[in-house]
């Protein structure tokens, strides 16, 4: 009951009109920043921190949290409408989000994304209120070996992404792993596959790859078909999802919340892993898995819910342990420090009122974002009224700008173009693209945790089987890999699906 009282106190403190204005402004600014290509939540929050410097601590943190949601949602808007992800965590949304746009359901996709974000964020915040401490401790149980085992489960889900041919899916997956190796070796510091180029020391930029492989290669492949296959905007009237779409989204949101919340608790896990695995989970477990890749609402609802649940769950390690679980959270942590607050368990003892006001504002921020964005869906989608030929040129422009603004480096534009051509080649060869993206995201995390684990065990691979959590996870991974063979699931799951 104490918790409840304190939360109510927090709501009272957060609901002053100034704080509401800050929260609203934060959501709005964040959304606008998020829509600008290339500027994701990290840069967005960092860019706007100065604005909050002279506010009182509670107001400043409330506004920053709101900016943080806003940018995350803004990134989704360009993913869905322009096939250009504003940030890594909504990259996977482009597949079905843009496919929905092409069949005139952009409004429904954006509305579901907003609702999913709200659901995921709110449930994760409830978790923060109800059980922050035990959940934070749970995150700590995931050490390097468990982290590696989780990545094994993630990679094993590749079988769900296989189209007609498992061999082709594996080719795609191996390609992704190979690309993820580019850059400086994280342990020994030796450059790998950089061909002497400084630009490759950091590896290839994930967003540039995604924009190229999914966005550019799709536009390049239009030429072959007809101009008619480019965006139609017939369904502008249908801004809201219909009843079937709502019904189909609900289980996806539930899965997305679970995945995002669980992974968000683990320090070092990124939001893009959550959204990616949520997508793959849809591909494997959704009732309409066959439609994924062709504009299925599940492909938007799952990942978008997951990345918001992740973002909010990642606040739990910050509040309970003082550990920033992701780069964006670290920016927030910096803001806390600037305001003289040290995140961690002492926050609740020394600045209890403020801590609860911030938590209350997380609920308010999520709600405001929903209220702000659903009415704006109409405005955003009106962009599709632009004639197809002009719109395509605009999308290309957006892609180039988006790739450039990742690091303000022209090299990323070339990466984007190169991967666009690669994507086109793979489409021609009927090699699915999604497995490559999966391994590209998971590869570096897998490598890091593998090498840390082996240092802990001093070279003994038994470490993955001696520890209960990692043993169970590895077992799950093996089962998933074997599931098509064992026909645990209907083989229909792996039917023809050229898109992914």
């Amino acid at each position: 009951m104490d918790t409840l009282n304190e939360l109510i106190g927090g709501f009272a403190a957060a609901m002053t009109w100034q704080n509401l204005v800050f929260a609203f402004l934060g959501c709005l600014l964040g959304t606008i920043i998020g829509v600008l290509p290339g500027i994701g939540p990290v840069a967005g929050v960092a860019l706007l921190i100065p604005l909050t410097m002279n506010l009182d601590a509670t107001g400043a943190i409330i506004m920053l949290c709101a900016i943080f949601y806003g940018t995350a949602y803004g990134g989704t808007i360009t993913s869905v409408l322009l096939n250009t992800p504003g940030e890594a965590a909504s990259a996977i949304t482009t597949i079905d989000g843009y496919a929905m746009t092409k069949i005139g359901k952009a409004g429904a996709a954006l509305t579901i994304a907003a609702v999913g974000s709200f659901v995921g964020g709110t449930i994760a915040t409830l978790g923060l209120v109800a059980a922050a401490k035990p959940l934070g401790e749970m995150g700590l149980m995931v050490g390097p070996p468990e982290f590696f085992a989780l990545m094994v489960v993630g990679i094993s889900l590749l079988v769900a992404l296989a189209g007609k041919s498992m061999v082709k899916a594996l080719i795609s997956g191996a390609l992704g792993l190979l690309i993820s190796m580019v850059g400086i070796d994280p342990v020994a510091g030796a450059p790998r596959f950089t061909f002497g180029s400084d630009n490759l020391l950091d590896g290839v930029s994930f967003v540039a790859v995604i924009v190229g492989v999914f966005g550019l290669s799709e536009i390049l492949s239009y030429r072959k078909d007809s101009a008619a296959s480019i965006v139609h905007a017939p369904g502008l009237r249908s801004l809201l999802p219909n009843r079937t779409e709502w019904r189909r989204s609900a289980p996806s949101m539930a899965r997305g919340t679970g995945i995002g919340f669980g992974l968000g608790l683990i320090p070092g896990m990124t939001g893009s892993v959550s959204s990616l695995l949520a997508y793959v989970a849809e591909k494997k477990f959704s009732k309409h898995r066959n439609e994924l890749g062709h504009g299925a609402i599940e492909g938007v609802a799952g990942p978008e819910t997951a990345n918001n649940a992740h973002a909010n769950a990642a606040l739990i390690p910050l509040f309970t342990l003082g550990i920033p679980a992701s780069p964006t959270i670290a920016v927030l942590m910096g803001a806390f420090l600037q305001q003289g607050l040290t995140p961690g368990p002492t926050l609740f003892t020394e600045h209890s009122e403020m801590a609860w006001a911030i938590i209350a504002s997380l609920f308010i921020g999520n709600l405001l974002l929903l209220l702000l964005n659903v009415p704006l869906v109409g405005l955003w989608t009106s962009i599709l009224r632009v004639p197809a030929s002009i719109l395509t040129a605009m999308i290309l422009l957006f892609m180039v700008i988006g790739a450039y603004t990742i690091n303000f480096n022209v090299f990323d534009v070339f990466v984007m173009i190169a991967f666009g051509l690669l994507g086109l080649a793979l489409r021609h060869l009927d090699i699915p693209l999604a497995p490559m993206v999966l391994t590209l995201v998971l590869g570096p995390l897998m490598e890091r945790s593998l090498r840390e684990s082996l240092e802990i065990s001093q070279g003994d691979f038994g470490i993955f089987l001696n520890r209960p959590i990692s043993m169970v996870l590895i077992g799950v991974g093996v089962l998933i890999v074997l599931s098509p063979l064992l026909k645990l699931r209907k083989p229909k799951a792996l039917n023809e699906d050229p898109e992914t």
Partner: protein
Amino acid sequence: MPRIRIAAAAVAAAALFALTACGSNAGAANSAGDAFPKKGKSIELIVSFSSGGAVDTAARLVQPILEKELGTNVEVVNKPGAGGQIGYTQLTSAKPDGYTIGATGSPSVVVSPLDPARGAKYTRTSFQPLGRQVIDPAVIAVQPDSPYKTLKELLDAAKAKPKSMTASTTGLQTGEHFALAQIQEKTGAEFAPVHFSEGASQATTAFLGKHVDILVANVSDVTELSKQGKARVLGVMTTERAPSLPDVPTFKESGYDVEAGTVRGYSAPAGLPDAVAKKLEAALKKAIEDPTVVKKMEDLGLQTSYLSGADYAQFWAGQEEDFKKVLPLVQKKD
């Protein structure tokens, strides 16, 4: 990009206006007509370690004051990996125009170019030191439920069974790795190093989750943990006790002649125009010595120890000499 910047600036301006209307004064300081920095062109401050670690925190504390002093945006950008090498490479390959500066921490920045196996593309002279901020001594800590209550007990146990305990570092040849090597050389106690190349927050997380036995870190990393009783700090590797850990004996007090730690400052790529360097140095001095920053650094267990660009450069050269001597200790294959 100019268009984006303009758009972002417009958004920011609109927000500023709105905020002033709310009764808060969020005006930014103006720089005079000087060419550097151009208004609206932001300065990138590269932090070569992941967010949340001590280097990152320090950079984020000085950042707002730098912004005020320079009259433009300063953006802290994390480029973690390879024990800082990725970020340092990026810093030194940036144009020396003052719009890219970086946090430089030793030993990582001093040592990485010394070992040819790492293929670093920079040397000491690729950097133009702008100012030193802190010296952060190394510490060794065990789990709160560990049977070892004193440094001697721990080291004796490690001597009896070499490599039986794992100890975290923040990467190959980082301060923590050097500290472990120095302990081994001076006392004969050998731990099995686990390199968390993404930085201190990953190492600390693994220690809190009891995935490694020993936390080798800096004073600043453990001050809060020690307060909360999540780590038992057994020794500080300096000659004097750390003010934020008054109850922890130094290695010297315990009879071991080991001194190690991390030194942090800020640098630019070599070749800055003099006027730009002066301006950055002055702004950094202001930011580093700002009483509220010093106070906040103290809260985090960090002792501010400012040195000007020239003095920092000299200090750096001296460190390089010292590290060359112990380098073989951290080069062998683990």
